[in-house]
């Protein structure tokens, strides 16, 4: 779609620009400042240049956490995006069924993240938790605090349970925005359900799916509270994701310089991959849209 050339449109954007910049720019500058200084106390700081960045980039435990993080976010996207779209397609389009589905979907999203972890601790306990007890009854010894594989599986279940509804809600709203005329045209052409999906629904959902992919990537890459509460990064370090490791450095050891350098590198990684996803989703299937 061609857009109108008009620089006065900036006036519509200015309020948004100011309210976001207010909270964004000064804290970012402060963190950049921390990352190049050694801070001993108020008023006692030494410029250290790129020392913290070098220290952080050479940290083996950080590399491990980074690979775990990529694996985690990759799995999250591969599972949640298709599952969310399927659920959205299954949901009724109108009537009380649609209302009920929307409310049910929203429930897991509304629980504060630290509480999610706490609820899942008890939900997965083999003695008094529903899931833990059910798995034990099936004859599988289940204890996610001892087995890294089980810890990962539990985390993935929690994550998919918690966040797939977000993808489904977005996809559903996107589907609802498709005019009825498109479906009628497809029906007249005798299109199958699959080609209706491929040529009408999927291209029309491109906008909401871009947001869903970016949101799920960013939030899963930055995930902290849920795994921290559920597994505490263990057993061993097997579920220590980047944020958990970052907090260990920033709060546990109170190394503000390295933690700031770490934060900036972390931020740049998220930025780079979000940008790549964004570009890819902007260009994919451009030919399919008439």
């Amino acid at each position, binding site marked *: 779609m061609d857009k109108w050339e008009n620089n006065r449109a900036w006036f519509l954007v200015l309020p948004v620009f100011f309210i976001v910049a207010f909270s964004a720019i000064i804290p970012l500058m402060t963190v950049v400042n921390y990352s190049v200084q050694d801070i001993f106390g108020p008023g006692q700081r030494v410029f250290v240049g790129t020392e913290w960045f070098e220290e952080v980039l050479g940290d083996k435990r950080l590399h491990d956490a980074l690979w775990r993080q990529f694996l985690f976010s990759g799995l999250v996207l591969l599972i949640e995006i298709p599952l969310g779209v399927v659920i959205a397609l299954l949901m009724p389009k109108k009537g009380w069924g649609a209302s009920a589905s929307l409310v049910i979907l929203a429930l897991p999203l509304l629980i*504060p993240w630290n509480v999610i972890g706490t609820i899942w601790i008890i939900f997965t306990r083999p003695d008094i938790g529903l899931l833990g007890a059910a798995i034990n009854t099936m004859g599988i010894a289940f204890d996610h605090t001892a087995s890294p594989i089980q810890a990962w599986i539990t985390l993935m279940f929690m994550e998919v349970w918690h966040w797939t509804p977000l993808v489904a809600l977005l996809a559903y709203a996107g589907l609802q925005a498709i005019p009825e005329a498109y479906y009628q045209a497809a029906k007249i052409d005798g299109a199958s359900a699959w080609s209706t999906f491929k040529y009408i629904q999927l291209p029309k959902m491109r906008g*909401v799916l871009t947001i869903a992919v970016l949101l799920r990537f960013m939030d899963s890459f930055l995930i902290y509270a849920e795994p921290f509460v559920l597994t505490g990064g263990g057993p061993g370090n097997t579920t220590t994701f980047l944020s958990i490791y970052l907090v260990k450095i920033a709060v546990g050891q109170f190394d503000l310089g390295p933690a700031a350098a770490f934060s900036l590198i972390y931020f740049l990684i998220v930025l780079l991959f979000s940008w790549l996803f964004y570009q890819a989703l902007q260009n994919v299937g451009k030919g399919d849209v008439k």
Partner: protein
Amino acid sequence: MKIRKRTIALLIYFFLLMLPIYWMLNMSFRSNADILGYFALYPKDITFANYMRIFTDKAWYSGYLNSMIYVTINTLISLSLALPAAYAFSRYHFVGDGQIFFWLLTNRMAPAAVFLLPFFQLYSTFGLIDTHIAVALAHCLFNVPLAVWILEGFMSGVPKEIDETAYLDGYSFPRFFIRVFLPLIRSGVGVTAFFCFMFSWVELLIARTLTTTNAKPIAATMTRTVSAGGLDWGLLAAAGVLTIVPGALVIWFVRNHMAKGFALGRV
């Protein structure tokens, strides 16, 4: 037959989705000793003590009120600022549009831990610490960009001919925007309002950093209980159940907008 299969698949999914929430509900009606004592599919000695404690203890119920106040302010600010901006991004080309659009989203990408200290310093410089407006404003950092992005997606789905026709018919921009355009993207506005509400409601780190007592959010009250020597699971579960209620009401109110959506041809 095909319809039946779809419904069954959806019901199975919803059943699984509800299990952890059912477990929380189950625990909320049991005393702590009862929960830790034995496995029970449903509460055998139903107690409302957990809920009574939350409704009568000011430390608890004020947490809900605080959260509701700043979340409402934040949702209103986010929506009212994002609507015109999203329209600009979806309809016009202007200097730096692509860059600003992507920059907005980068504000969701920074790991919070290290940013909390400068955040606190910034807001105390303006004397805003422990006020609802501080949290509402701080949450704009991630909600306004999200709102702009979601709304832009929906607005770009509306053909530009609609704008052109309306302007030819003599509509002014504000009148066109409110009377013609907004009804067309109802599902987008509904889902955006819900997401702003939801992300502000569950955010803990920033809200906790910027508040002490007067605007302390419910999620922070709940962590305090967790760390107080041994967890009170029943109380926590009851508080968890109650955190779901306001958001469920919000989605109930916007559900019609989300379920109706776009009706081209009736314009």
